[in-house]
Structure formats: structure tokens, C-alpha cells
């Protein structure tokens, strides 16, 4: 097994369309036994479906939708990633937590289904240390503890090692050092928490472990499907949908496989907005579970940073950017303040046929809102949502700074990181910085700040 350590930015090497323009796009939603695809962006919207394994059905759908050149083929693998998680095909991970104490209020694997723990848990080891909030490293690297972690991984037959250090979002050097040593000592792939990102250490550790556990199986799937796209739609750039509605290049997806899980609501929302022909909207999803509300801003779904991984791992929280969807109520709009919806069209999506489907729009129209209704099969909406997906990256990190010049440097570093991630998904992207903030950390008299930079690829709405 080759020894590799993830670099923070993972460039993708797929071919770029010769003219450099974003042309027709194909989005394909994949399940274990079928695929549904949509071609959009060239003035028409064509749909195709095929049965069979993911590779077979993808090839059939692409053969129908991409006989002519298209610039992108975007794939939604969420059901397949869920199958990996639920189907007993996870890698064994030895985890090294670098923290002040071996005790914490959050226990890794606490609340996880026993069957998943049995597969994934190849031992856990605590190493004392980390970076404090001034960016200072606390204590020396404990060489013996690192060596013991390596031995544990070998002894337990780990496929992957995960390193999560407190303070890694202020300074990632400790994780990189420890990962390099573990990689050299064991030959295992090492995943690190600063790559997963997020400002909660325990949730970041969970994300890192799951990224590592999913990496092998999902990576093989990515390679297989990538080859299909390359063969059937040569010249098209493949991408993979993430839970926040964005899309990732192959290597980004391999490194952060958990991000491919749970894309459904983000893609439905993007698909609905694209169908309604509006880049910015409040979107109401209605089905037997009730009414759920979210918003799309310039083609990007409004996202939350922390996710309860139900239904796959109920009660387990991960740092995973995903669509921010608010349950409103049992199918009516009485829980919505019209004021909260002002200023944008409201797109109402009925995911199932309803007898009272006129009721909600009437209420909203009566409140002075512009309402557009969308009706389409969910799988088609998912594929349309893929076509409308926008590469984007939000970097949230910390910096110990001591003045306005240092604030600016911290901001520049975060912006470059975010830009690099967007370009890794799509090297042709025209970048737009949506948010670029330095937020002082409250209640502390020292100069620690949170830096947040959100960069998106500027693109026209791909109407579906």
C-alpha cells in the first residue's frame, strides 16, 4: 500500500472543454440499480433513465444525453455512498486524537450503530498536545505515543489512520507532522482533521474518521464512474455533488467522501429553483413529511455547518456543510412568516401529488409574495439540481493576529484557500468572493479572530 498524506488542495486533472465556456451540462442521479439524468443548458431539457448497476446505467444515460459534446457531467452518488455506509464496506480506521486530555464530553463512536463501530474502530489513542488559541504548540510531540499509534494500527489491521488535533484550524503543522510520521511508519493512508475543516473539534474528528472509512470504497466507485464518463462523454468534465449542493472534483471527493452523502435536499432545492428559472428564491418542499423551507442565493443553497447524520448515524454530529432546511409544519404554510420570505420569489415544490395543492400558494399570494409552483419527479429534480450546481468553498478558520495588517493577511490566506478549492473543482471558474469576514472572538482580550471566506464560481443559471 502506498503511503500518502492528503494535501489541503487536491487538483483535478480532467480535460477542460476546448473553448473554455460552460456549455450544456448533464446531471445524473445514481442509485444502485438505476440512473436518472437530465441534459440542460442548451435551450432544452432532456431526460433519460436506465436500469442496471451504477456504471451500466450511467453509461446508458450518457449515451442518450451526451452524444453531442457537453462541458460537464455531474454525478450524484449519495445513495451509493449511503449503501457503503450501511452495507458493511467501511475501512478500519485507527484514530489518534491530539488533545489536552484523554477524556472529553464527546466519545468517538458514542451512539454509533455497533455494526459500524465493529468495522471502523481499529483502535483509538490519545496523544497529549495540540495548539492553543494563541497558536502556540503545547508540549512536545510525544514520539513514543506516535510510535504506539503506528503499532496499534498495524496490530488492529487498520486500512487508514486519522489524526485530529485541537487547534488544527489555527495551525495545522502538528497534524501534518504526526501524519507524516505515521505514514512513514505504517504505510497507511492518513487523513487529517484540518482537511475536513469545521470549528468543532469533536465533530471534526467524526468527519475525519468517516472520510477515512469511506475513502477506499467510494474512491473505487469514483474511479469506475469517472472512467465511464471519460469513455462515453469524452471531453466533459466530471464532477460529484456535495451535500451543500456544490460539486467537487474527483480527488476532492475521494478525500472528503462524507461530503457526498445526503445531497438530496440541496439538489432538490437547486433543481426547483432552476426549473422555476430563478437563481435566488425561497424554496418550499412539500411531501408527506410536511413543509420544509430553505433558500437559494445566486444559485447556492443556504447551508448549515454542522449536521446530525441521521438516518445513517442518528445523533452523530459531523462538520458537514449541507442544505439548511427548516421543517415548517404538517403541510401548510401557517408556520411561515411572510416577512421572512419577502424580496424573493417563493418556489413551491410538491414532491408528491396533493389534494389541497392550491391552498399554500393562495395563502402566500395573499401575503403579497410571488409564488412559482414546480412539479416534477424527485429524481428528475435531483438531476436538474445537479445541472445547476455551482463549485463553491467556504473556509472558516482561526488566526492569532495583532493588528489590522495581520487581519488582512489572515483574510488573504483564507481567500486563497477557498479560491484554490473552487479552482480544484473547476479550473475554468470565474471566482466571486461572496463573504470575506474577520470576526473577533468575543470575550477574549487576546487577538484571536475567526476568518471566514466564501468563494463561488460565477456562472449563469443553468435552466432546466
Amino acid at each position, binding site marked *: 500500500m502506498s503511503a500518502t498524506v492528503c494535501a489541503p488542495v487536491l487538483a483535478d486533472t480532467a480535460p477542460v472543454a476546448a473553448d473554455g465556456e460552460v456549455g450544456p451540462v448533464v446531471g445524473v442521479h445514481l442509485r444502485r440499480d438505476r440512473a436518472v439524468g437530465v441534459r440542460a443548458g442548451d435551450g432544452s431539457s432532456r431526460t433519460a433513465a436506465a436500469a442496471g448497476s451504477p456504471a451500466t446505467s450511467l453509461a446508458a444515460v450518457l449515451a442518450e444525453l451526451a452524444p453531442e459534446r457537453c462541458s460537464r457531467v455531474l454525478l450524484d452518488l449519495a445513495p451509493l455512498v449511503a449503501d457503503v455506509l450501511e452495507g458493511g464496506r467501511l475501512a478500519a480506521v485507527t484514530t489518534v486524537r491530539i488533545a*489536552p486530555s484523554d477524556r472529553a*464530553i*464527546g466519545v468517538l463512536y458514542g451512539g454509533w450503530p455497533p455494526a459500524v463501530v465493529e468495522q471502523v474502530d481499529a483502535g483509538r489513542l490519545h496523544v497529549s498536545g495540540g495548539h492553543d488559541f494563541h497558536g502556540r504548540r503545547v508540549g512536545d510531540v510525544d514520539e513514543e505515543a506516535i510510535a504506539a499509534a503506528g503499532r496499534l494500527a498495524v496490530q488492529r489491521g487498520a486500512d487508514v489512520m486519522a489524526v485530529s488535533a*485541537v487547534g488544527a484550524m489555527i495551525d495545522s503543522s502538528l497534524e501534518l507532522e504526526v501524519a507524516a510520521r505515521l505514514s512513514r511508519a505504517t504505510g497507511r493512508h492518513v487523513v487529517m482533521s484540518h482537511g475536513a475543516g469545521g470549528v468543532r*473539534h469533536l465533530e471534526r474528528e467524526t468527519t475525519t474518521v468517516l472520510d477515512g472509512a469511506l475513502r477506499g470504497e467510494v474512491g473505487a466507485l469514483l474511479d469506475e464512474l469517472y472512467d465511464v464518463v471519460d469513455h462515453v462523454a469524452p471531453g466533459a468534465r466530471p464532477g460529484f455533488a456535495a451535500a451543500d449542493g456544490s460539486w467537487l472534483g474527483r480527488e476532492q471527493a475521494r478525500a472528503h467522501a462524507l461530503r457526498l452523502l445526503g445531497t438530496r435536499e440541496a439538489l432538490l432545492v437547486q433543481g426547483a429553483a432552476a426549473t422555476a428559472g430563478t437563481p435566488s428564491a425561497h424554496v418550499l418542499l412539500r411531501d408527506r413529511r410536511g413543509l420544509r423551507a430553505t433558500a437559494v442565493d445566486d444559485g447556492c443553497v443556504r447551508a448549515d455547518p454542522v449536521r446530525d447524520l441521521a438516518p445513517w448515524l442518528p445523533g452523530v454530529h459531523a462538520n458537514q456543510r449541507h442544505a439548511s432546511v*427548516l421543517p415548517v409544519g404538517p403541510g401548510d404554510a401557517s408556520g411561515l412568516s411572510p416577512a421572512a420570505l*419577502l424580496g424573493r420569489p417563493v418556489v413551491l415544490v410538491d414532491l408528491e401529488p396533493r389534494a389541497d395543492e392550491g391552498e399554500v400558494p393562495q395563502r402566500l399570494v395573499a401575503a403579497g409574495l410571488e409564488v412559482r409552483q414546480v412539479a416534477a419527479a424527485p429524481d428528475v429534480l435531483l438531476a436538474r439540481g445537479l445541472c445547476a450546481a455551482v463549485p463553491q468553498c467556504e473556509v472558516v478558520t482561526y488566526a492569532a493576529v495583532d493588528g489590522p495588517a495581520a487581519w488582512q493577511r489572515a483574510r488573504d490566506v483564507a481567500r486563497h484557500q477557498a479560491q484554490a478549492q473552487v479552482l480544484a473543482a473547476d479550473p475554468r471558474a470565474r471566482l466571486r468572493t461572496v463573504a470575506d469576514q474577520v470576526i473577533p472572538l468575543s470575550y477574549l482580550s487576546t487577538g484571536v*479572530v475567526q476568518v471566514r471566506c466564501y468563494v463561488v464560481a460565477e456562472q449563469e443559471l443553468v435552466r432546466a
Partner: protein
Amino acid sequence: MPEVRSITADHFDDLFLGSQLGVLSAASTYRGSLETWVHALLQERPVELVDPAEARERFGEEEMGLAVLMVGAMLSLLEYPFRGDEAVVAVRRLERTLGVRFAAMCPFNCSGPNALVAVGAASLLGLPLVDCDGQGRILPLIDQTTFALGGLRASPLAGVGPWGDVITVDSPGDRAEEIVRAAVSGAGGWMLCATYPAPVHRLVETGIQRSLSQRIASGALMQTARSDLGERLARHLGGRLVARARVVELSGHQHTGLRTRQPASPYSILLRGLSSTEPLIRLEVRNEIVVATVDGAVVGAVPDMICLIDPLRRRSVELSDLRVGQVMEVLVLPAAEAWRTPSGRAMAGPGAFGLSWPAQPA
């Protein structure tokens, strides 16, 4: 809402939502490890909530109580999570320092993490929690309390930090705030502190009464209010909805006001009102929102509580999650009576934050 005598896991959702009210920088609106931990503690051992009136009868004149809080940045607590025994270590250390055994405890305040910290600590220690606190809202300094207004002292105080550092502060000169703030910085961003050791009767007399149960009731309202949450909360808590507005700018700036003890970098939030006149609303943040103006006129100021409510999510919003373009409701809720006195305003009014805006809103 029925009277809460015992805080169980069933109350957790209401407590969590209600505790976020009026909190911006110290808010934690997403559930994670801290919330899961406190919920699990309540499942294992519910916390007895003692009404202030009952506390006067139940506890003797000499029986001692204390307050617990987390000093520092909420974000540092997310990065350096509790081990789980900090409250026990801090309280036992303070007991040893004073040579007493505490009979009860109360929250330092019921806002943000401190509501959860108090409930979690009471569950761990098996102590009854008296339904009062020292701020009735969130204020940055440990001596910015109605306990202090009533003559109680924050020290002796014991604190535990994320790296296991334990401090005991006994400050005859009432400099606990300065010393603890320096210790928090050195300790790594937060300390869980056991403070204001005093007879339970005195904590009740000087504290803001029924603040915890009020937060639980507010949380229940936030869960059940189907629409118009801002207006309903304002009615429920005797305040007013100042504006519905869209965030147009978020910016840090240099403090140009009077010298202040506040551990805060000034920050401004500008919003454009959604009403026909599109007024410009400015919120000045010194850790939390301290002043609200509409087209330049002050409409709310500390010690009153200025809240941002996300009407779509029907909850408070945290500063690091605030985005340009979001629609917010701005509420001003009245401070507790103790803060409305001249000495209360001197301690917690705009002047305490280095601002020269009038203490009385227009």
C-alpha cells in the same frame, strides 16, 4: 406553561432554544457535543429546580450556594471541549478553599453556554439549582452582575481551563475580573469557574429571579410559535419588535469611545428595514449587541437585551453564522428591574461599554 420543578431531558430542547435568546457571540445554535452531553446528563440525573420563594424557606441562613459559568469564548469551547469533570473540580476546589460544603447552586446567567453549564454542573454534582441568576441576560464581565450590585463578591473563585490548569483567585481588592480574564487567555480560551460563594438566601435576594424557568418558557414558545415569532416573543417578554430588516453589512472597526474594561473588539451590523421607508438599522456589538439605532436614533441600549431572531429558522442566530442578505427580526427586551436603577445602569449601561449614547432609548 406548567411550573418546572425538575429539569429533565424533556426540557432540554426548550432550555437550549430559550438560552440562545439575546445571545450573538456566545450563541451555539447548532447541536453538537456539548448539547448531546448535557442532554445525556439530564437523562441520567434530572436537576431539581428550586423556586426562589421556596429556597428562602428550604435553606438555612448559613447554607452556602454558588454560581457557575464558563468565562471565555464560545468558539474556544467548541475547539477545546470539556473533559466533563471541570465543574466538579472547580466546585470542590472552592469548597476546600472556603472549608464549606455547598447546598445549592445557580446559573451565573441563563444565556448561551452558561445555561447548559449550570444545568450540567448541577446534574453532575447532584445539587439543587436555584431558579435565579446574576445577570438576567448575558454580560461580559464576572463582576457585571446583580450579585455584585447587591454587595456579593465574585471571589474567592476557582476555575479550570481546557488544559487542566486550575486557578484559585482570592482578591480582596475586587480584581477577580482582571485576574480571571488574564488566566482565561493563558489557559487557552475558556475557564469553567465556580464563583460568588454566598449564603443561598443572599444569592436569591440579589439575583434575578425565575430567570431559568423564563428561558425554558421562552424556548417552549419558540418551539411552538408557528409564525410571527418576533412579535410573540416581544409580547411574552414585555419588549418590542423594532424592525424586520435585511443584513447589508458586517464589519469590524476600531473602538473610538471611552476607555473600557470590556474584552471586546468592536463590530457593527447594518441592516436595511423591510418597511416602506427602508430605515437603516445599526447594531453595535461589544461581544453582544449593546446599542441599536434606527436612522441614527437610539431605539435600544444595554442593559436592555437586543436580540436578533431569524424568522425563517425561528431561532436566534450566532454572529459567525450571520450572512449579508439574511432577513432578521430585531427585538428589544427589557432588562430586569435591578438593572434599571442608577447603579445598575452605571454597571451595565452603554457607558460600561465605552459608549456615550444616551442610556435611555428614544
